[in-house]
C-alpha cells in the first residue's frame, strides 16, 4: 500500500475527470433528469466543495464520481475517468476493487451508516482487510492511530464498541477514520456534518480537514452549507436542478459570486428583524423540572418568560432540553415541579385536564411537516379539522375560512384537494402553519420548523412567520439550533444547556459579549462565511 504521498503522484495531476454527466432517476413511474450534463475535474490533493439545495443532485453526482448509481438511478451519459480507469465501462467487480480501497465514501448520517450489528473497529478496517491492503492486525493498529489523530476519546478501545454506544460526533469521526483506513486517493464526503450540532461540527470539521491535508487526499465535499464548505474546499462548484451554476476558487466565490442564484444562497443571513422588547407576559415557565419515565431529569429548574406578540428563540444543542420544554408547555409531558402560567392562570399539568380553550390557545408546528400530517387527508381536511374542533365551523363557512387561511400562507384554493404527498417541503410546512393559525392561538411553538428546509425555502417560511406575527400579534416560541435563524427572527433569546437555562435576554444582549462560557462556545462554533474562520477559531481555542 502507498502511505507515502509521493508514490501517488504529485498535487496537480488530474485524478478524476467527469465529462458531460447525465443521470436519470426513476420516480412516479417514469424517468426524470437528475444531472444534466455536468463536468467535473479534480486534481490530486484538491478538495472540491459541491453545494446546492436538496434535489440539486449533489449526492447523486458525488456517488457517480465513484461510478455508483443509487437504486432507482442510472448514469445515462458522459464519461467518468478515475486515474486512467473508465468507471462507466468498468465491471462491477472492477469497481468494487476501487471502492473502499482507492475511493472512499463518508455518509451524511453516521448513525445510520454504521451497521448496528458489528463493532466499530471491524467496520473501520473491513474494506482495508477485504481488499488485502493490510492484514487485520495491521489495519486495526493503524485504525487506532487514526482514532487518536482524530481526537477520539480512548482511541485504543473505542473501536470495540458498537455504533449505538458512541455519540453522533464521534461516529462521524470514526467514519472519517474508516474512509481513511485504506489511504484512498479520493474521499467523497456527503454532507458529513449536517446532522451534527454546531459545537460538535467544529471538532469534526477540524479532524476531517487535518487528515485530508496530512495524507494529501483529494476530496469532494458535498454540503448545502456555504460557510462549512468555505472552511474545507479549495474551490467550489454550485449546482442547481442538476446543472452547474458556477465554479470558482473558494475565496473568489465568497467574495464575488457571479450568479444571482449563488448570491441568494446566503440571503437568509441578510434577513434580520429589529428586536422589540415586550412587557406583557403571555406565558411563563416557572421553575420547571421534568423527566422521562423514572430516568434522570432532563429539565432542571427551567424558568422562561414569553412576552406577547414577540418571538422568543430557544437555542442549544441536541439534548439540551429545548424540545422537552415544548412538551411540558403543551402538556404532553407533565412536569415534576414548577408551573406553567398562561394568560395569568396556572395551566393544568396534564393534557387531558386542560379545557378546549386552553388547548386552542397553544399550538405547535413541528420539524418534520411530513410526519405531522395524515398522508391520507387532503389539505382542506387538515386545515378544516381545527376549524371544526375549536370553532364549530362546517360547510361553506368552513371552506371560506380555509381559503382565507390558504391566502394568509400565500397559497391559493387550488391546494384544497391536494394530499401532503403532492406538496413540496416548504408548502407542507406552510400547511402546518395554516393548521396552527386555524385555531387562532395566542402562542405557536415552532420546533425546528426550518431545519429540514433549504435556505431559500427557509427564508420564505421565516418571512411568512414574521408577517403573520405583525398582522395577528402572535407569540412564537421558536426552538432551533441554527443561530442564523435566531438572528433573523427573534426578539429574545434563551440559551439552554443540559436541561438548564444558561441565560435569557434581548437578542442584542445575548449576541454581544460578554457571554457565559457555554453561550460563547455555541456562538463561536457557528461557521462564518470566511475561509479563515476555522483556522482562527482553532487558534483562539488553543490559546484559551
Amino acid at each position, binding site marked *: 500500500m502507498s502511505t507515502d504521498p509521493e508514490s501517488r503522484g504529485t498535487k496537480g495531476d488530474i485524478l478524476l475527470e467527469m465529462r458531460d454527466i447525465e443521470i436519470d432517476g426513476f420516480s412516479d413511474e417514469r424517468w426524470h433528469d437528475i444531472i444534466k450534463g455536468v463536468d467535473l475535474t479534480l486534481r490530486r490533493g484538491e478538495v472540491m466543495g459541491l453545494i446546492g439545495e436538496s434535489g440539486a443532485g449533489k449526492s447523486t453526482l458525488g456517488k457517480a464520481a465513484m461510478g*455508483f448509481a443509487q437504486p432507482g438511478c442510472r448514469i445515462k451519459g458522459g464519461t467518468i475517468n478515475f486515474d486512467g480507469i473508465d468507471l462507466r465501462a468498468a465491471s462491477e467487480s472492477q469497481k468494487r476493487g476501487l471502492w473502499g480501497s482507492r475511493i472512499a465514501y463518508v455518509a451524511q448520517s453516521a448513525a445510520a451508516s454504521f451497521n448496528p450489528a458489528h463493532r466499530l473497529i471491524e467496520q473501520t478496517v473491513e474494506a482495508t482487510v*477485504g481488499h488485502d491492503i493490510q492484514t487485520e492486525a495491521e489495519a486495526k493498529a493503524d485504525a487506532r492511530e487514526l482514532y487518536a489523530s482524530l481526537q477520539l476519546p480512548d482511541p485504543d478501545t473505542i473501536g470495540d464498541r458498537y455504533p*449505538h454506544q458512541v455519540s453522533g460526533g464521534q461516529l462521524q469521526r470514526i467514519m472519517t477514520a474508516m474512509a481513511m483506513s485504506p489511504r484512498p486517493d479520493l474521499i467523497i464526503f456527503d454532507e458529513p456534518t449536517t446532522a451534527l450540532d454546531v459545537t460538535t461540527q467544529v471538532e469534526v470539521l477540524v479532524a476531517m480537514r487535518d487528515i485530508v491535508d496530512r495524507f494529501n487526499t483529494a476530496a469532494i465535499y458535498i454540503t448545502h452549507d456555504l460557510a462549512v464548505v468555505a472552511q474545507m474546499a479549495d474551490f467550489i462548484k454550485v449546482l442547481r436542478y442538476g446543472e452547474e451554476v458556477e465554479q470558482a476558487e473558494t475565496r473568489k466565490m465568497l467574495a464575488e459570486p457571479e450568479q444571482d442564484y449563488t448570491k441568494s444562497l446566503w440571503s437568509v443571513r441578510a434577513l434580520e428583524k429589529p428586536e422589540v422588547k415586550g412587557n406583557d407576559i403571555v406565558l411563563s415557565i416557572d421553575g420547571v423540572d421534568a423527566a422521562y419515565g423514572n430516568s434522570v431529569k432532563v429539565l432542571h429548574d427551567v424558568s422562561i418568560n414569553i412576552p406577547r406578540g414577540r418571538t422568543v428563540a430557544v437555542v442549544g444543542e441536541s439534548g439540551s432540553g429545548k424540545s422537552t420544554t415544548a412538551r411540558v408547555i403543551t402538556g404532553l409531558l407533565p412536569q415534576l415541579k414548577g408551573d406553567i402560567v398562561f394568560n395569568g392562570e396556572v395551566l393544568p399539568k396534564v393534557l387531558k385536564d386542560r379545557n378546549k380553550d386552553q388547548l386552542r390557545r397553544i399550538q405547535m408546528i413541528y420539524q418534520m411537516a411530513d410526519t405531522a400530517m395524515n398522508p391520507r387527508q387532503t389539505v382542506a381536511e387538515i386545515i378544516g379539522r381545527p376549524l371544526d374542533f375549536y370553532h364549530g365551523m362546517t360547510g361553506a363557512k368552513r371552506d371560506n375560512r380555509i381559503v382565507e387561511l390558504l391566502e394568509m400562507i400565500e397559497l391559493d384554493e387550488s391546494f384544497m384537494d391536494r394530499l401532503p404527498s403532492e406538496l413540496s417541503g416548504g408548502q407542507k410546512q406552510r400547511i402546518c402553519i395554516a393548521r396552527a393559525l386555524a385555531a387562532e392561538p395566542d402562542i405557536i411553538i415552532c420546533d425546528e420548523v426550518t431545519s429540514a428546509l433549504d435556505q431559500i425555502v427557509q427564508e420564505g417560511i421565516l418571512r411568512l412567520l414574521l408577517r403573520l406575527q405583525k398582522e395577528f400579534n402572535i407569540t412564537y416560541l421558536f426552538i432551533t439550533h441554527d443561530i442564523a435563524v435566531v438572528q433573523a427572527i427573534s426578539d429574545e433569546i434563551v440559551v439552554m444547556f443540559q436541561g438548564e437555562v444558561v441565560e435569557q435576554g434581548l437578542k442584542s444582549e445575548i449576541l454581544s459579549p460578554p457571554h457565559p462560557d457555554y453561550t460563547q462556545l455555541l456562538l463561536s462554533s457557528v461557521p462564518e462565511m470566511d475561509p479563515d474562520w476555522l483556522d482562527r477559531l482553532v487558534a483562539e481555542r488553543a490559546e484559551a
Partner: protein
Amino acid sequence: MHPVLSTVLQRLGLGVVTLFFVSLIIFSSIQLLPGDFGEAVLGQAALPETIEAFRKELGLDQPAWKRYINWVASVMTGDLGTSFSGRASSGIDRSRAVVDLVAPRLWNTLFLASMAAVIAVPLSLILGVTAALYRNSFYDRSVNAATLTTISFPEFFVAYILIVVLASLWPLFPSLANVTETMSFTERVYKCALPALTLTLVIVAHMMRMTRASIINLLASPYIEMAQLKGASRSKVILKHALPNAWAPIATVIAFNLAYLVVGVVVVEVVFVYPGVGQLMVDAVSSRDIPVVQACALIFAGTYIILNLIADVIGIVTNPRLLHPR
C-alpha cells in the same frame, strides 16, 4: 442484571402466568363438551345408578372448582392423572397413567417435528437468502411461486400427492408411517420420510418469505449502501451486513412454524397413520377422556410458550443494542 437474563426470567414468569390462564381455559372448555364420559362408555341404555356410581369412581361428581384445583395441584407435582379409558364396566381397572399414554406419542411427534425442522429450517433460510440476493430474478420468482403453491394446497392434499408420486408411481418411501417403539433410528427416518416431506412443504413458504422480506427490508438501509461503497461483494453484503440484523423477525416465524409442527399436524398424522400426540388428543376428545385431553392441551400450550421464549432470546442476543447497553 444482564438484559438477556432479566428478559428470559421475565418471559418465563409471563409463560407461567400464560400457562395458568391456558389451564383455566382448557378446563372450562372441557366442561362445555356435550355428554359425559360415563354415558359415553356405558351407553345410553345404562341405568342412572350405574352411571352415577361410575362418575363417583372417576371423581366427576365433585364440583368443577374442586376438580380444577385437584388437577392443577397434581400437575404441579408432575402427575398428569390417570386416563379414563380402560376402566370399562367390567370392574377390572386396566386404566393407564396419562404420562404413560402421552409420553411415547409425544416422543413420536417430536421426532417427526425435528425431522421436518431439520429439513425445512435450513432449506427456507437458504432459499430466503438466495432469493433476496437475486431478487426479482427468474430464480426469485420461481422460488416464490413454488413455495406459495405448496402452502396454498391443503396439507392432506400435498400428502396424498406425495403418496401417489413417491410411494405409488415410484415406490421410494412407504406410504404408511406406522412407527413402533422397537424400530431402529434409520428405519424410523425412512418411515417418516413422506410425512416429514409433507410438513416441510407446508412450512417452508412462510419461513422463506419472511427471511427474504426481512433481508430486503434492510437492503434500503444506509449501512447497506455503505457496505457496497466499501467494495463488499453482493453475498457479503447480504450475509455479513443484512442477515445479522434480520434474525429477530426470522426467529419469530421459525418458532411459530416449529410450534405448528408439534401441535398442528393431526391431519398429516391421520393420512400417514402416524401415532403422534395429535391423533391421541383427537381420540381422547371423542371418547371424553378428559385427563388425556387436558394433558395434551397443556403440552401444546407449553410448546408455544417455550418456542416463543427462544425466539425472544434470539431477538435479544442478535441485537447489540439490547445485548450491549450503553
